[in-house]
């Protein structure tokens, strides 16, 4: 065992840091309201910012967006631990760069897609040219994805897609949907669902905004009315989509903006060190100290799990159970951090961004509402617990 970064890892970390500080668009981080773990205040789900596109392309040029992929597919041939280091620094500095295409769809295509599919999509993903949105959830299929009703029927070389998706984060600013639909209604869902890529520009797609409780337009409902999708966009085999989806979900749950947790925590620490209340520093208050140290412990555990999952991938162990564990732990932490911060900051904490008296730009207030989404999006806490108990510990369903 050795819990330290190697010399090479340290050098890489410094290189990433230097890049971010140089390339991050001026003022970007000062406006950012992203809350670690949350899904409701991610700037890249709201607008398509040319400055962000530019920095992503630069990362693409360095092979960083897909650094842990094999070189033959344009990957950086780096380790998952290095990738984890990269995302940690990225999220620490509120830098853009994460995307569904590189983190979820790309790895799934590499694992299950045909050579043709890889050839068509992988190079563009590697370059950072594409933005994907996740077209899984439907009004009656949230936790229970087997209940999806969107359907795709074969018509020559195309699929014809009908149905509705919902909670589609960033669909309005993306290029393509990463979609599941039923293709064999007679078969049980896990044998009759297909995963495919749908171009947002296809005729028949209507995207309607949904405003989230932070007041941001981050997600949408999306309607498909006889939308044609070339059959070559199918990922893997027809009717096998449900299995691929389960793997894609694990990839999604491994996407943790670890650095964001650390940074917001440091903000809080500095606030407590520099703010006097009732004649003394908050950091001298025993209750504040206990809360801050408890958070430090929980963040440490989350970090360990974070690097552990990356290390497992490097050692050809797929962190299926750990994916649920880290999703559960970090999203609960997302809420605890917001809650603790709000309590420590007291009355001021309720001030919204833009208010002159708002501490830390009001980020904790936004995060306080947003953290409600952390424990719901990408599979609720209850679903993670079910996976841990049933798949992980072998407990019986009934």
């Amino acid at each position, binding site marked *: 065992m050795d819990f330290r970064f190697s010399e090479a890892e340290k050098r890489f970390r410094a290189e990433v840091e230097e890049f971010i500080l140089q390339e991050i668009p001026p003022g970007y981080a000062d406006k950012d309201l992203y809350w670690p773990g949350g899904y409701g205040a991610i700037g890249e789900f709201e607008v398509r910012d040319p400055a962000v596109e530019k920095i992503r392309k630069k990362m693409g040029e360095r092979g960083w967006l897909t650094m842990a992929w094999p070189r033959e597919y344009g990957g950086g041939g780096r380790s998952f631990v290095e990738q984890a280091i990269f995302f940690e620094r990225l999220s620490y500095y509120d830098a853009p760069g994460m995307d569904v295409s590189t983190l979820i769809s790309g790895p799934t295509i590499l694992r299950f897609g045909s050579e043709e599919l890889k050839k068509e999509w992988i190079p563009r993903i590697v370059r950072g040219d594409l933005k994907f949105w996740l077209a899984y959830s439907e009004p009656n299929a949230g936790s*229970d994805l087997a209940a999806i009703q969107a359907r795709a029927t074969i018509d020559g070389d195309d699929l014809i897609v009908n149905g509705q998706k919902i909670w589609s984060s960033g669909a309005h600013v993306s290029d393509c949907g990463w979609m599941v639909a039923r293709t064999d209604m007679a078969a049980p869902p896990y044998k009759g669902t297909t995963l495919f890529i749908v171009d947002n520009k296809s005729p028949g797609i209507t995207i309607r905004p949904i405003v*989230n409780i932070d007041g941001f337009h981050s997600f949408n409902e999306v309607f498909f009315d006889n939308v044609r999708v070339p059959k070559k966009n199918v990922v893997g085999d027809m009717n096998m989509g449900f299995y691929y989806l389960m793997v894609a979900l694990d990839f999604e749950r491994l996407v943790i903006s670890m650095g964001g947790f650390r940074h917001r925590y440091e903000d809080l620490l500095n606030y407590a060190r520099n703010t006097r209340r009732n004649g003394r520093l908050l950091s001298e208050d025993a209750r504040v100290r206990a809360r801050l140290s408890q958070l430090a412990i929980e963040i440490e555990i989350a970090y360990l799990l974070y690097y552990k999952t990356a290390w497992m991938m490097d050692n050809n162990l797929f962190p299926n159970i750990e994916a649920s564990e880290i999703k559960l732990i970090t999203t609960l932490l997302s809420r605890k951090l917001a809650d603790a911060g709000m309590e420590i900051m*007291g009355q001021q904490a309720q001030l919204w961004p833009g208010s002159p008296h708002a501490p830390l730009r009001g980020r904790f207030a936004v995060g306080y*509402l947003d953290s409600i989404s952390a424990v719901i999006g990408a599979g609720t806490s209850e679903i993670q617990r079910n996976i841990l108990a049933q798949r992980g510990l072998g407990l019986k369903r009934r």
Partner: protein
Amino acid sequence: MDLGLNEEQEMLKKSAREFLSKECPKKLVRELDESDSGLSRELWKKMAELGWIGLPFPEKYGGNGGTLLDLIVLLDEMGYNIVPGPFFSTVVLAGFTLLQAGSEEQKQTYLTKICSGDMIMTFAITELDGTYLPESIETMAEAKGEQYILKGTKLFVPDANIADFLLVAARTGKSTNPADAISIFLVDAKSAGVKVTLLKTLGRDKLCEVVFENVKIPSKNLVGKLNGGWPVIRSILRKATVAKCAEMVGGAQASLDMAVSYAKERVQFGRPIGSFQAIQHYCANMVTDVDGSRFITYKAAWTESEGLPADMEVSMAKAWTSEAYKRVAVLAHQIFGAIGFTMDHDMHLYFRRAKAGELAYGDADFHREIVAAQLGL
């Protein structure tokens, strides 16, 4: 012992539930939340006509002659439905202060107008640090002939943006004990030098910053004794605290009711989500929190209403309810899943108020400290 509501209180509760669900639908709540004023004149007038605004005040001022406990029953329902507007500031903060410390003339002039629904009033107590301690009051009122000159900044003043008059806690001298030199003044919101800015808050509950720049106040607008303000404020804060608890209990009850009925309807994996034990346990935890909060709040309200020493009871209620409402709202959100994370859904209206309520009149830590002191620790 009698642990139930009396007949009139039961009636009040029932009629309030009916009236509010009809006259203050969530569509209106939302509009008011998103507006700057937070006030529907129409609803305000109707509440005055029902005698709600004057509920706890003597009949000779146009009130209804009810008790604090009666008001608590009403606030519980207002919290259940959510009723934006200056009811709390006008009735609890301002009305009770005038009743307790105002001169007969002040009561005749102002309390009657409050009861009839013709005057909106609030109380500016807290300042930059937002705490409810006498030492945090730095706003100064200096005597100059027949008037006082008021100078300072208040923060988190509810409804000051629509108030006709403000009660203001200000320092009127130097003293070793910071509680000994505080006085209360009635300030016309239209006076020169009063600057009100609406603060944008998570709770969307119309808290304001109020700056007093050499505002001239006639001496007759002193409320109560010179330098005798703090004991009055303490007593008003105690009432406000238990009154806020009542609103929070109602809000927690509504969150529970909404979540339970959704758990019965929403089907996933071929069965109502309420049939999963995880969800059942959440609901069980919620109902336990709601009931606990209700009992401890009503005990505190009764104690205060009877004029018995209530510091301990009120602080116990606020320490508990602040955290309980939050727990309930968070679990309710968990049960709703993504649909609850939208502006169009009602749940966030409660989640926001749980936080605002927690912060108002001292959070759980603040009140646990009072409980500790009361325990002799």
